[in-house]
């Protein structure tokens, strides 16, 4: 009963006109920065932090949360339309989302990702209200050994994203890890693989790698096609998902939501892992896995729901323990502190109005996002009607600016162009970029946690199998790796791999 009273109280706070206004500004800016690759939620939120300080803590934090939420929505738009993922979590959306756009189904793809996000976001918030305090233990149950095993499982799952050979996918994943380790070692501060270039001390940025491998490489691949004016099919049949689309997507949205919510609780990497774990799961469960990679709507619905549910789950460690699971959450934490609040276990009991107000406002923000985004789908689809010979130079200009803005560094533009060229040849030779990018994100965490767990266990490798959570993750990973060798499963992979080696 307490919860109900609290929720009612929360809506009371969130529905104040001033808070509604802040919430709207937040989600609106969030959608914008999500659509513009390069200007991510982090830079927008740090720049706007001072603006939020003028009002009450509630309004400020409601607006910041809105930006975060909104950007998760916007991130999928460029993935689907032009194959440029705005952030790591939407890399997976590119795989099937952009294929759908090419088939003239950009509308349903954008639509299902908006609805999926809405459903997942709503569920995550309800779960947040009901079980937040009791799930706090999940966030800390993961120590270095558990993280290592989870990352290892993540990397194995990666290989299920690809249509080609396992060896190629694994090789790409390894290259991704190595690229991720460039820069100063996070434990000893020694420079690694920097070749004396000062620009590499800080490592390679995710934005230039992703924009090069996806955005630029895609343009290069498209332009080599013999005059097909509309590489992206302008014959747009419908703007919203059809009944059949809904039927196919219901399961993926449900599973993606649950998966995303639980993985989102884990500090570090939760949203990214959840998006591709959901993709892999759907591909595994599907009766027609060969459709994945060629515009399967399940491959958009699942990951998009997962990464939005993860955004909700991420509030749990922040609100209950004061441990921010990612930089965006940390910015929110900064906002709390500047407003004189103490995030931590006592926040909910000491400031119930604030906590429940924020949760309620996120719910309202979700509704606003849906209302804001649905009419925009038509507008986005119109954009695709531009002939490709005009569209592609604009895409290139857009990626150059996006990369430059993300770091204010010309070097990153070089990196992007280099990865664009590498990406083109990789794709031509049947090596896919998705495993590389995801390993690039997970690699540093994998390394750091492996080293820490070996220090903790004093070099005893059995620590990975004697700790239950870690053991489960590793067992799953082995099962997935050995699985394709077993005859019954082999058939499935071969079906998927048919288009290779032609």
């Amino acid at each position, binding site marked *: 009963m307490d919860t109900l009273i609290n929720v009612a109280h929360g809506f009371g706070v969130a529905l104040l006109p001033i808070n509604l206004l802040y919430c709207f500004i937040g989600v609106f800016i969030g959608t914008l920065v999500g659509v513009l690759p390069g*200007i991510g939620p982090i830079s927008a939120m740090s720049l706007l932090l001072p603006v939020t300080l003028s009002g009450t803590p509630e309004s400020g934090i409601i607006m910041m949360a809105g930006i975060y939420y909104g950007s998760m929505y916007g991130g999928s738009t460029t993935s689907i339309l032009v194959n440029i993922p705005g952030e790591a979590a939407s890399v997976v959306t590119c795989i099937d989302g952009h294929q759908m756009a090419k088939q003239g189904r950009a509308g349903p793809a954008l639509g299902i990702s908006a609805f999926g996000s809405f459903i997942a976001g709503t569920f995550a918030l309800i779960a947040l209200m009901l079980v937040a305090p009791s799930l706090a233990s999940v966030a800390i149950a993961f120590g270095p050994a558990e993280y290592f095993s989870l990352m290892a499982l993540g990397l194995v799952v990666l290989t299920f994203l690809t249509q080609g*050979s396992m*060896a*190629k996918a*694994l*090789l790409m994943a*390894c*290259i991704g*890890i*190595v690229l991720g*380790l460039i820069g100063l070692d996070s*434990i*000893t501060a*020694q420079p*690694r*693989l920097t070749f004396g270039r000062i620009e590499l001390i800080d490592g390679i940025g995710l934005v230039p790698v992703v924009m090069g491998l996806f955005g*630029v490489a895609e*343009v*290069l*691949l498209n*332009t*080599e*096609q*013999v*005059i097909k*004016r509309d590489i992206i099919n302008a014959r747009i049949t419908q703007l919203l998902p059809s009944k059949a689309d809904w039927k196919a997507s219901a399961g993926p949205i449900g599973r993606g939501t649950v998966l995303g919510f639980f993985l989102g609780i884990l500090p570090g990497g939760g949203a990214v892992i959840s998006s591709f774990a959901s993709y892999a799961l759907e591909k595994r469960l599907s009766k027609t896995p060969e459709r994945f990679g060629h515009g399967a709507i399940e491959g958009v619905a699942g990951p998009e729901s997962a990464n939005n549910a993860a955004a909700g789950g991420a509030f749990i460690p922040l609100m209950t323990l004061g441990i921010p699971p990612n930089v965006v959450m940390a910015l929110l934490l900064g906002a709390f502190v500047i407003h004189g609040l103490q995030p931590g276990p006592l926040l909910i009991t000491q400031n119930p109005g604030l906590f429940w107000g924020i949760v309620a406002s996120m719910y309202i923000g979700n509704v606003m996002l849906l209302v804001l985004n649905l009419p925009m789908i038509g507008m986005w689809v119109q954009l695709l009607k531009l*002939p*490709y*010979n*005009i569209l*592609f*130079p*604009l895409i*290139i*200009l857009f990626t*150059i*600016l996006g990369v*430059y*803005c993300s770091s*204010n560094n*010309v070097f990153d*533009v070089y990196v992007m*162009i280099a990865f*664009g*060229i590498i990406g*083109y040849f990789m794709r*031509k*030779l*049947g*090596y896919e970029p998705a495993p590389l990018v995801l390993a690039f994100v997970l690699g540093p965490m*994998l*390394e750091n946690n*492996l*080293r820490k767990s*070996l*220090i903790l266990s004093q*070099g005893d*490798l059995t620590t990975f199998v004697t700790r239950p959570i870690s053991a489960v993750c590793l067992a799953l990973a082995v099962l997935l790796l050995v699985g394709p060798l077993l005859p019954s499963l082999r058939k499935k992979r071969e079906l998927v791999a048919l288009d290779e*080696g*032609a």
Partner: protein
Amino acid sequence: MSNDSNVKFRLDNSELWGGLIGLALGGFVIWHGIKLKLGTIHEPGSGFVLFYVGILMSLFAVSIIIASLTEGGPTFGSRWENTRWTKPLLIIACLTAFSFSLDTFGFPLSSIPLMVLLLRLIDPVRWSLTIPIAVLAPLGMWWVLKRLLLIQLPSGIFEIG
């Protein structure tokens, strides 16, 4: 695989070369791992993970090479069959030239020619459309970034922009 009836060693087998590049990279990573010191299993050093990832890379690369030798694979020629392979090369050349000129000549002076080239070289857009797009798109974005978002794009030696 469709062509396993006539498997024979061919130098233009693209799979083979992909594998060889992978193997070379793997060796390079192993070498760097050793150089950065492996440390002990009790306290792994900076090169520990690099070393083992390098070994894995080499293993996967070898398996790709073996597969290419036993099963054959598509040739470079077939990969680029029926494509206008000069077009991507042209774009790559434009982008490379752009990256060299960006620091020297600045964003507006580099991106306008880049846009003109991209619009004209691939599937030529008529001039009456090319010029406005090539001039307005970069300048518009440059103005928004510089004046309103306070992001300074490279201005080059002529200080334009």
